[in-house]
């Protein structure tokens, strides 16, 4: 049922920064489709067109790289990976040179060593700043190269003055072009991986600079805040807007009640900040560590992920009922998810005409923020103005989201600070804590333990799977396990960019209490086929949106999950650096295995959720109270910002 409705893939990066596909030589047959590549005397047969870099990796030979990144098209601009190729007058970039005929390569001749050393020295001669005063100290690819090549003095000097002002205009991304080495990964990330296209090189020669349209501040262009560029920056030129000083100040202030909510993706990745391999979640160790740091309460964002499912699912049912039964033509379908703030900003800029399709339900982070300063404050008898609400997120766009002016429905800023995984890792280290060694402890009461549904929000397809678990049970009155083993709806899982799934509804049951006031019965859904879509990365979102515009099959969907980041939240712009497809896959595994460990794995079965609809959100999902606190609206921004 999974299908890959991907229209022809045309990268938008200039071809100067791509390795082009090479037509195989005509005598290919005689070569047996594979060609011999001899590197430093070791032989390997590789498919025609394989780069020297890939061939070397197959042989276990290390060739240093800088502008190359496994997620991105090839640039061949830094020249760090140059090697000697027999028969070629000049050195060749291993990342870009395709092997199309038997090729002999040497990776560390005199010429190669001299060139690499010079290139690193030249990069350092244009790289302002000192390593020990940098957010990327010890996690910087330029620093590592300098070490690897034994740089012990600045052969060609070192800048003493900055050339550019730091752009701190964005809530999410800080750009310090003084540290930029012009590898252009950010450009390729933005235009090719994400198809947003905020960044481009301007000027020539030594004046070349990565810039926005008209070199405007980042806050004044169509940046969606996804932070994918940060994750791929080899140096400290790009970083997230870091509020940790303010968070520490709140912790130090005895009048403040500092509450932390943690999302599942950072928990599955924060171990990487402490030298752990990707793919191990530290959820409960983190609870202990946070209390050690001085946070007063620690909650699980999954609680409001469950709430999001109920609210968003109810909204979907209302839309479908209006459209299918009441024949209301004004209802916008398919409904789009709204929990990825990068995606929300993307659609606000690029497809504002489709904003009515976006669920009005807030993201889990913002729902929690609104509840903490209302429901929780009342319950605990704390003046909400003394509550400082912090969210640990895998995301840089969450920082922008919590600063949206409309996100103050509690009467206060619903969420005060969004912290990235990297920033919290730093706070924990600063507190002298070795996270992996921490004993485990549970989340604080009040919101209790969430369900597994919330956990899988972190992976692409997770929101859809949670929603389906819920909708299937509500509508059929039967356990999801009857339809999907272990309640795992595998068709919506995976890393394909775009997925389309059809779920036939063969039988319906009685309408449960939760939504009784909205629909009289489910008969109108009997025999229907629920059509859903899932996509991740805005390049794929664009494909889906263009398909909808053209009246393709996604326009017939009922519900589509959109995530701005490749891989979903686990690949978010606030996650530990580096990121690769393998690292993201490992994090996904951690998330799905955490889901399995939960006893309650469906949002509507969460007892605290049931309780909160009785006690607080008394007029039910999508009712008045929930509309005031848990729903929001969007701004049509368009592509041109005056």
């Amino acid at each position, binding site marked *: 049922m999974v299908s890959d409705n991907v229209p022809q893939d045309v990268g938008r990066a200039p071809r100067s920064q791509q390795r*082009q596909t090479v037509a195989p030589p005509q005598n290919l047959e005689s070569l047996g489709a594979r060609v011999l590549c001899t590197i430093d005397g070791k032989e390997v047969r590789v498919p025609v067109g394989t780069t020297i870099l890939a061939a070397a990796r197959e042989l276990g030979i290390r060739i240093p790289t800088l502008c190359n990144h496994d997620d991105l098209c090839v640039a061949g601009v*830094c020249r760090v990976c140059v090697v000697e190729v027999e028969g070629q007058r*000049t050195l060749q*970039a291993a990342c870009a*040179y395709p092997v199309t005929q038997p090729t002999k390569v040497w990776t560390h001749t005199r010429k190669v060593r001299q*060139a690499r050393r010079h*290139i690193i020295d030249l990069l350092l001669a244009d790289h302002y700043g000192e390593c020990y005063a940098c957010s990327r100290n010890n996690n910087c690819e330029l620093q590592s190269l300098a070490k690897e090549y034994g740089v012990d003095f600045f052969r060609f000097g070192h800048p003493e003055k900055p050339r550019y002002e730091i752009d701190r205009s964005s809530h999410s991304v800080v750009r310090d072009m003084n540290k930029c080495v012009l590898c252009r990964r950010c450009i390729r990330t933005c235009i090719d991986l994400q198809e947003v296209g905020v960044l481009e090189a301007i000027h*020539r020669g*030594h004046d070349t600079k990565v810039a926005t349209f008209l070199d405007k501040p980042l806050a004044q262009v169509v940046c969606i805040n996804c932070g994918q560029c940060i994750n791929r920056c080899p140096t400290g030129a790009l970083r997230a807007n870091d509020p940790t000083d303010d968070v520490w100040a709140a912790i130090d202030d005895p009048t403040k009640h500092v509450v932390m909510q943690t999302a599942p993706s950072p928990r599955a990745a924060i171990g990487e900040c402490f030298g752990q391999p990707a793919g191990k979640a530290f959820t409960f160790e983190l609870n202990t560590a946070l209390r050690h740091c001085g946070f007063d309460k620690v909650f699980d964002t999954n609680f409001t992920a469950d709430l999001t499912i109920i609210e968003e699912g109810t909204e979907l049912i209302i839309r479908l009922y209006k459209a299918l039964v009441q024949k209301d033509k004004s209802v916008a379908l398919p409904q789009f998810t709204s929990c990825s703030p990068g995606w929300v900003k993307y659609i606000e800029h690029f497809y504002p005409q489709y904003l009515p399709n976006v669920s009005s339900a807030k993201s889990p982070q913002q729902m929690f923020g609104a509840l903490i300063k209302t429901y929780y404050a009342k319950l605990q008898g704390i003046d909400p103005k003394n509550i400082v609400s912090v969210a640990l997120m895998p995301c840089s766009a969450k920082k922008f989201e919590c600063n949206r002016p409309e996100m103050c429905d509690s009467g206060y800023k619903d969420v005060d600070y969004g912290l990235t995984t990297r920033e919290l890792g730093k706070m924990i280290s600063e507190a002298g804590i070795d996270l992996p060694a921490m004993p485990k402890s549970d989340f604080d009461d009040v919101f209790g333990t969430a369900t597994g549904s919330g956990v899988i929000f972190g992976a692409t397809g997770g929101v859809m799977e949670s929603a389906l678990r819920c909708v299937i049970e509500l509508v059929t009155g039967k356990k999801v396990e009857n339809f999907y083993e272990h309640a795992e709806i595998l068709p919506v899982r995976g890393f394909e960019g775009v997925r389309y799934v059809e779920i036939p509804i063969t039988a319906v049951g009685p309408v449960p209490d939760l939504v009784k006031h909205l629909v009289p019965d489910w008969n109108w859904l009997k025999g229907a086929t629920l059509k859903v879509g899932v996509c991740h990365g805005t390049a794929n979102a664009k494909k889906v949106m263009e398909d909808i515009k053209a009246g393709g099959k996604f326009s017939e969907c009922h519900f589509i999950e959109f995530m701005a980041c490749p891989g979903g939240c686990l690949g978010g712009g606030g996650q530990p650096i580096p990121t690769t497809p393998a690292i993201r896959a490992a994090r996904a595994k951690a998330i799905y295995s955490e889901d399995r460990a939960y006893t309650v794995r469906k949002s509507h079965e969460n007892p605290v959720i049931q309780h909160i609809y009785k006690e607080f959100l008394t007029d039910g999902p999508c009712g008045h109270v929930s509309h005031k606190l848990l729903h929001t609206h969007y701004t049509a921004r368009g592509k041109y910002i005056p």
Partner: protein
Amino acid sequence: MKAAHQGPLTFAKVQADTGLKTALNKTRAEVIAEISASGLKGRGGAGFPTGVKWNLAAAARADQKYVVCNADEGEPGTFKDRVILLEHADLVLAGMTIGGYAIGATKGILYLRGEYAYLRPHLEDALARRRQQGLLGPGITGTKGFQFDIEMRMGSGAYVCGEETALIESLEGHRGEPRNRPPFPVDTGFFRQPTIVNNVETLAWVTCILAKGAEWFKGFGTDKSAGLKLFSVSGDCARPGVYEFPLGITVTALLKEVGGEGAKAVQIGGASGHCVPASQFGRKIAFEDVSTGGSIIIFGPQRDMLAIAHNFLDFFVEESCGQCTPCRMGNVKLREGVELLEQGKCSMAYLRELCALGETMQLASKCGLGQSSPNAFLSIVSNFKDEIMGRTAAGSSVR
């Protein structure tokens, strides 16, 4: 404008139509064989055999192929393409048409240097006239099934856009930056289709060769550098201008023709070429010795070689596309080195380091610009060491 040359250029004696008609009466393979037999090598600077290039493009499998005429003429000290376009545009346009016929392309693009915008109306007229005469468009000169037309595009002043892949990027609407090669344009060029990029002069010679035969062309020049070549001569000489000489002419012979005797050095090949000192004036101007796209700049005895190096490096610092590290930063460092030399503050050890850096730039830069940008610096350092070392802060020599 009149080219200053001794007698008319060969171009003036060739009928463009004769060349084109001869070509169209041959098979495609025969046309390419004729070009290959003539030994014609690219006149844009790199000297790649034109027949080989065309053969590769002809063999490439694609529905659409392109012929691009590189009229970006940006190399300091060259102006011969301008003269050709002004006085012999038909030879060039016919050459493009022959190229289209030979490789199986239906579209040609003439990429004109931004500063030559004033030539545009003249060239548009020539194109219109050729369309009217049935020399462009569908069914050229009655040949069934062969159609070809030419579109003109303007550059915007970047030197690097003369590099063929940067030129193609620019044509596609991107920033003019060289691509990774291989693959080459003959395989993956304009909009990923097989494309031949040829210099203005190369295309004009193609028409002449078809008109007069490969043997005629081979009668000039040397074994490895066949034929005639236009030279843009400037600098300290009595008669600067555009000249036609057979390849293989010695520097001394050339200087004599242009009234440049007594020169201290000659820069051959423009800013990216080599600086040949008087002691080496016996060398031949040919692909196998000192090669050039046509730029000859003569320096009289009064010239300061360090100032010359400085000037060329200013050019490269400005014109590097900024894409790759060796060229973007290397040229800045070489220029800083020249400034140190000017102030008498450059140690021998650092000068050696800079020469090694020059070698790195030649070897590791992404395109020909960075690969050739240290040439002038390196040849001046190795040939004029006495002149450039030991200066005082005031800029004069202590000797």
